[in-house]
């Protein structure tokens, strides 16, 4: 039989699941027999094509394609809009358009965060495609208010609504007129066509929409700013799926004697305790605080490509100083961040953070021999990829292939700047707008020692036998990585730990008996 009975009080019967059961001879015979009906290509032919797809000729064909996209590392705008909305207190994201999109957004985030992801749809169907979805939006507002009692609704759009040209501003007005919501109920909105930009664009425009709404709300009153001897700084992490990062930004700024206000803080909304009660809105930037954000001394904008419109808005409309920084990964990235904070808030970097810096540097010196000279491929959102590249360069690693499907026009220049600052950056090739099928060709033709990116790289990792260090989004297949920070010195330590131990695991796995060392 196909199981090994083993009775214990905790596991009454050993059961084999899909991982093992299909290795059984009965199944192997079944699979072989099925090929007759598949009219499958002969195995030798499959092998021939497989080998060909791994070569230079295929690489050139692959890079010559103009219209086809295969395994892109990007999603669409409203996904980002939902994340931006979840960063605010009591906020229900509402996406205007077809309902399937919202089912996808909720599943996608739930798989990554392992958390409930509230978001509603206006459920437009064929009739709404013809007549417009005004009634859908009004009824959605009414139902959401009754059932889910939010303090704020953040509306974005699917491509269906954008193609037929839905007017959110007018519809939200109609919802007030028809008393689906009260006249003063906070609603923000953003048009988020999925055929423009990517999820990071959607994050940006929704965040901007929310900040605009808050800045115009009655709470946005300078007299409501609490008297404090601390300088308040806005921190805008952007499309940052590491809830640990949000907490780390807060901790760092508090240590520096600064009063941090995270704009778009989903650290609690996407990391709530399991305690027997389900709380639909467990956190987020308080709306009243968000309304006062324009009175803060400055805004730290930590994803340049992602937050372009938000930064522009803050600078122009709030007339506030915006400090545009690379996401603070690693030693130099964090140094730059702390230096900028110290300057703008007129504070000193405390000894505690200097000690943390020292500990990260110490850890790097401990591990440097194993990471030095290791060739890596990096893929992901543009801001993250730039920050990661800078970090691996300071570890003495050699970035070889750098892919960002959703890179904008500034990406290449920013990347070159980072690469040219280190002799370890000389070999790197930068591939904006390329996808992970391109990356597959790159990795097979010019091999690397390590892949860094989302779980979507796991197919290349297995096929090319190159270990993957999971950083970014989405990560569906490993647990809890997003709960720890990757920014700051502490985050640097987490990243370094992941990198060096992946290399050591690989070394142990492949070591001949004599080199299977007890000490590394």
């Amino acid at each position, binding site marked *: 039989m196909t199981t090994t009975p083993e009775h214990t009080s905790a596991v009454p019967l050993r059961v084999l699941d899909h991982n093992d059961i299909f290795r059984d001879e009965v199944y192997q015979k079944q699979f072989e027999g099925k090929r007759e009906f598949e009219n499958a290509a002969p195995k030798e032919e499959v092998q021939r094509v497989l080998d060909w797809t791994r070569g230079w000729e295929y690489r050139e064909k692959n890079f010559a394609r103009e219209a*086809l996209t295969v395994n*892109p590392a990007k999603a669409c705008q409203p996904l980002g809009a939902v994340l931006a909305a979840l960063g605010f207190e009591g906020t229900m994201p509402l996406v205007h358009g077809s309902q399937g*999109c919202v089912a996808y957004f909720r599943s996608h985030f*739930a798989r990554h965060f392992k958390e409930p992801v509230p978001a509603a749809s206006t459920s437009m169907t064929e009739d709404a495609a013809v007549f417009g979805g005004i009634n859908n939006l009004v009824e959605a507002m009414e139902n959401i208010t009754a059932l889910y009692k939010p303090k704020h609704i953040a509306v974005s759009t699917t491509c*269906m609504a954008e193609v037929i040209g839905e007017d959110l501003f007018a519809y939200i007005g109609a919802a007030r007129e028809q008393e689906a919501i009260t006249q003063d109920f906070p609603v923000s909105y953003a048009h988020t066509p999925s055929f*423009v930009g990517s999820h990071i664009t959607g994050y940006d425009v929704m965040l901007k929409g929310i900040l605009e709404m808050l800045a115009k709300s009655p709470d946005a009153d300078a007299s409501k700013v609490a008297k404090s001897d601390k300088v308040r700084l806005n921190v805008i992490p952007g499309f940052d799926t590491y809830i640990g990062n949000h907490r780390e930004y807060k901790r760092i700024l508090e240590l520096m004697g600064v009063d941090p206000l995270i704009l778009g803080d989903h650290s609690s909304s996407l990391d709530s305790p399991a305690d027997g009660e389900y709380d639909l809105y467990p956190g987020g930037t308080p709306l009243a605080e968000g309304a006062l954000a324009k009175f803060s001394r400055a805004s730290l904008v930590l994803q340049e490509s992602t937050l372009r419109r938000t930064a522009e808005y803050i600078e122009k409309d709030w007339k506030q100083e915006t400090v545009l920084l690379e996401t603070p990964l690693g030693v130099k990235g964090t140094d730059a961040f702390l230096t900028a904070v110290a300057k703008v808030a007129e504070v000193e970097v405390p000894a505690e953070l200097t000690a943390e810096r020292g500990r990260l540097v110490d850890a790097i010196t401990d591990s440097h021999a194993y990471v030095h000279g290791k060739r890596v491929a990096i893929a992901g959102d543009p801001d993250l990829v730039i920050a990661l590249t800078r970090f691996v360069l300071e570890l003495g690693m050699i970035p070889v292939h750098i892919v960002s499907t959703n890179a904008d026009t500034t990406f290449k220049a920013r990347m070159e700047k980072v690469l040219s600052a280190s002799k370890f950056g000389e070999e790197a090739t930068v591939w904006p707008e390329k996808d992970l099928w391109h990356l597959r060709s790159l990795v097979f033709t010019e091999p690397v020692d390590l892949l860094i990116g989302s779980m979507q790289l796991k197919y290349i990792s297995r096929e090319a036998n190159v270990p993957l260090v999971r950083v970014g989004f989405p990560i569906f297949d490993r647990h809890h990585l997003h709960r720890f920070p990757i920014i700051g010195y502490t985050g640097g330590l987490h990243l370094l730990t992941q990198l060096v131990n992946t290399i050591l695991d690989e070394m142990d796995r492949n070591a001949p008996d004599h080199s299977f060392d007890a000490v590394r």
Partner: protein
Amino acid sequence: MTTTPAPERAETEAMIAEVLSQYPKKAAKFRAKHLKANDPEGSKECEVKSNIKSRPGVMTIRGCAYAGSKGVVWGPVKDMVTISHGPVGCGQYSWATRRNYAHGHLGVDNFTAMQITTDFQEKDIVFGGDPKLEQVCDEIVELFPLAKGISVQSECPIGLIGDDIEAVAKKSSKKLDIPVIPVRCEGFRGVSQSLGHHIANDAVRDHVLGTGGDSFEQTDYDVALIGDYNIGGDAWASRRILEEMGLRVIAQWSGDGTINEMASTHLSKLNLIHCYRSMNYICTTMEERFGTPWTEFNFFGPTKIISSMRKIAEFFDDEIKAKTEAAIARYQVRFDEITKAFRPRLEGKRVMLAVGGLRPRHTIGAYEDLGMEVVGTGYEFAHKDDYTRTYSMLKEGTVLYDDPTAFELEEFAKFLKPDLMGAGVKEKYVFHKMGIPFRQMHSWDYSGPYHGVDGFAVFARDMDIAINSPAWDLLEAPWSKAGEVA
């Protein structure tokens, strides 16, 4: 019926009334038709309305027609390239998440766990996407020479901007000498995944059915396995039983399936359908066009597996019947071993379900085989004929919910306090917070198979893991308990 409802039914009706009272008037009126206390007789007054639009804003658990076509029917066909035609999102979110297992090398002779898209940009919306689609088909053939066909899965914009994908498909089919199949499964069509299944079935009917069949010799025992998507290997576990009954499975629809199998299915002597909701259409078509009989079956849990095996064997000769009985005798030993191990740990446990179009009824028997009781169930995208098949399987008064909202599931769970909830990933973590054990019943929670004899062992084990995990004892902090006492 004018008699006083049974106590359980009255309780259920009160629970439903309480939940409905929280809705605005209009939505309450609509939702009332979808929430019923069960009458096993299926009386008119207890009839659950279904396949109707979801109300805006209620947090439906439903998806769209594209999900039904690309995600369910076409995506698993492993030797065809599935194009998510339109913007990048739809294909991205449905990339490799359904777990329809398939053999073959990804990107060489298996294209299931890939995201292949025309990635529409603004210019494609403004000027139309037909030229891009044509070019994409050309490039697919260049890069994936072993692909046996292409299906074009339309996303919302396609139907709104007036693209003629049928013309492109026809032209490309001819030019490239492989089937290029246009599918009009735009997400705004219909009310759920269900119309997408239907549209996908129709596309198979119009472009694939009856076009193949010369690749193998026929026998009298040829059957097709329809409506099994091989989630976690389900179809393989089911096929094992059919083969051990002496039957020959000539096609799998569509888990680990191929276009050749679909094209040859008209040669089947009997079509066996597991997921009735998503593939009854093609069975009816084959019956009409080729006279192929079809029968529903259920390979979840011993009781249903055994009765289904006998039902299927009835279509064949004594040799098959004898083999079937011999197989049942062998399986019974295994079933006894599994239930002996797990039933004592699961006996009396109460289950709530909210799944797609089949499992809310098809898994009831498997739970009952383990001594468990389904105390509430409902479908995401069922039709009337699904509910008709459900009423008699449940006790009087069991709550039935069609297209349940997040609010309803949470409220019903608070009332019913189930020991286990079975639904999807969107629901999962809500119930974890509430301390209610949960299993994803779409993806088998990354486990499986659940079909067949081998699948029942995994099913039983997984329900045990969920319900009897020591994690559930940790929810309350000792000091908050102390606080209550004080």
